[in-house]
């Protein structure tokens, strides 16, 4: 039985709507699981309808199912094995797969346009050719960009920005070249232009991401998320498939919004992040002088004493907590504090960690109830009334220089008002400046106690001393 084109279009529309509901579900944790179910349902419908609309089952079908199964098993295996701390790498890796499959589908359509109703080789419909080129180019950029992001997050490649003279000019020229190549491809239908277009797109993805430093990864991941959506939408236009167009638009705007939120969390413009090079600058003279100022450092006993005598404690987690895998130890410490009738809450800065929501997932993994975890604007006023702020693996997001020092590179960035707390505990491995390469005045304050140790070990020791 071959399903009519109209009927299958309606089913594709249904799966598009289910995908909208999947995102809608994420507005609260209670509805989110149902949302995910809608997503799975939408995907099942889309795949089933595709099989039914092709109808003529040749030996190819067996291969399709085998490849589907292989991919599915690998995906399921990864999903069960991956530690929550590796979520940014996983998402970057997944983006690269979306990008690459968009490229493969575009190439396949280019080589065999009849199968997709796009005309014949050498005579592909103009609109389809443009859509195909856009889909393939964005897909290729997403692929190579995500690979670089993955390598940086995984630590295989250094997280520090790689910059060279004329970088921006080169990128701009390559982007113009892509437009020119698309034009040439459309006017000549020559496959050579298609291959060059792909090669340059891969190169651009690579060049775009290498100048961007480790702590800007939340923006990069969100941006690549957005690109993968636009690539899918481009292919959706080629295939005249509404499920793909709807999904592509949803994912594209989702990634764009996340990039915007991340940029705002750092008070930097999107272009400033994309042009890169942040954090590579040398420390300024003044901050180097400050290095000699005395700091108070303490041990687990001191920290435990301070917290035992507090009535409210606010925890400020950062990327360091993820690196040290300290979330479970932290949760145990908090449990002990709560047994002593101490009120404990968590404060999350929008750009804490390496991707949007990174800290929330780690705390959830450690069984921290989500209604004890607050966003910056919800909790910032509470610091003034809290007794102890326990900063674990965060630095720049607490730096008062963002408010007081117009010369500071992070000036204007919204920060957690940790300084207003009666006392501040900093768990850190050393006094080294944070990612932005600037010193944190908080370290030298009268009421700050530095705890120099691995975040996990220190937290465990504090628990023992409570």
């Amino acid at each position: 039985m071959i399903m009519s084109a109209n009927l299958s279009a309606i089913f594709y529309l249904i799966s598009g709507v289910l995908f909208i509901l999947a995102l809608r579900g994420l507005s609260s944790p209670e509805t989110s699981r149902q949302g995910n179910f809608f997503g799975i349902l939408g995907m099942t419908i889309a795949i089933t309808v595709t099989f039914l609309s092709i109808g003529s089952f040749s030996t190819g079908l067996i291969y399709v199912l085998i490849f589907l199964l292989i991919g599915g098993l690998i995906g399921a295996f990864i999903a069960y094995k991956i530690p929550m701390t590796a979520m940014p790498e996983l998402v970057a890796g997944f983006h690269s797969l979306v990008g690459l499959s968009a490229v493969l589908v575009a190439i396949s359509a280019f080589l065999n346009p009849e199968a997709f109703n796009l005309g014949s080789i050498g005579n592909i419909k103009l609109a389809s050719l443009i859509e195909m080129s856009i889909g393939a180019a964005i897909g290729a950029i997403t692929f190579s960009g995500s690979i670089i992001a993955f390598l940086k997050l995984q630590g295989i490649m250094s997280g520090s920005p790689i910059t060279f003279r004329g970088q921006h000019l080169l990128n701009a020229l390559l982007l113009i070249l892509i437009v020119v190549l698309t034009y040439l491809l459309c006017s000549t239908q020559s496959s050579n232009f298609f291959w060059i277009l792909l090669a340059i797109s891969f190169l651009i993805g690579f060049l775009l991401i290498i100048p961007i430093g480790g702590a800007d990864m939340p923006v990069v991941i969100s941006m690549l998320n957005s690109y993968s959506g636009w690539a899918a939408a481009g292919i959706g236009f080629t295939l005249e498939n509404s499920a793909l167009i709807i999904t592509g638009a949803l994912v594209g705007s989702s990634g764009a919004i996340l990039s915007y939120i991340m940029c705002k969390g750092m008070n930097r413009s999107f272009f400033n992040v994309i042009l890169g090079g942040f954090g590579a600058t040398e420390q300024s003279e003044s901050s180097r002088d400050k290095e000699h100022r005395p700091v108070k450092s303490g041990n687990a006993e001191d920290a435990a004493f301070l917290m035992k005598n507090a009535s409210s404690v606010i925890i400020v987690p950062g990327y360091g907590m993820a690196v040290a895998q300290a979330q479970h130890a932290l949760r145990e410490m908090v449990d002990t504090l709560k047994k002593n009738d101490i009120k404990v809450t968590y404060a999350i800065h929008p750009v804490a960690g390496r991707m949007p929501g990174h800290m929330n997932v780690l705390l959830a993994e450690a069984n921290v109830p989500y209604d004890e975890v607050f966003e910056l604007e919800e909790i910032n006023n509470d610091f003034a009334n809290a007794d102890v702020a326990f900063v674990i693996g965060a630095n720049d997001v607490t730096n008062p220089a963002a408010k007081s020092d117009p010369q500071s590179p992070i000036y204007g960035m919204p920060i957690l008002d940790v300084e207003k707390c009666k006392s501040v505990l900093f768990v850190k491995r050393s006094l080294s400046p944070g990612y932005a390469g600037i010193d944190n005045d908080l370290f030298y304050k009268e009421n700050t106690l530095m705890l120099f140790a691995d975040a996990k070990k220190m937290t465990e020791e504090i628990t023992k001393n409570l």
Partner: protein
Amino acid sequence: MEIDPFIFRLSIFILSIFIGYYVVWSVTPSLHTPLMSVTNAISSVIIVGAIIAGLAGNSDSDFTISNILGFLAISLAAVNIFGGFLVTQRMLQMYKKKKKDK
């Protein structure tokens, strides 16, 4: 004069961007990581194109490059679909409210 079907697809596209805009702003910030993994999974609906590419044309077992690329794309998209939805499920299961009996 007839309207080109492309215009209808463009309308779907533009309206979906607006839907995406409003829906994503209402996503709670604590679920931004699951949002990324689920958008990853759904954007792999590109598998639809991969299946068409894989099954295109011939009924014998001579596969063209176009078919083989389709097969590869199916695998890649399937990794994402299964991996994306399952890892999202795994994350969402961890989000719990405070227990009342405590």
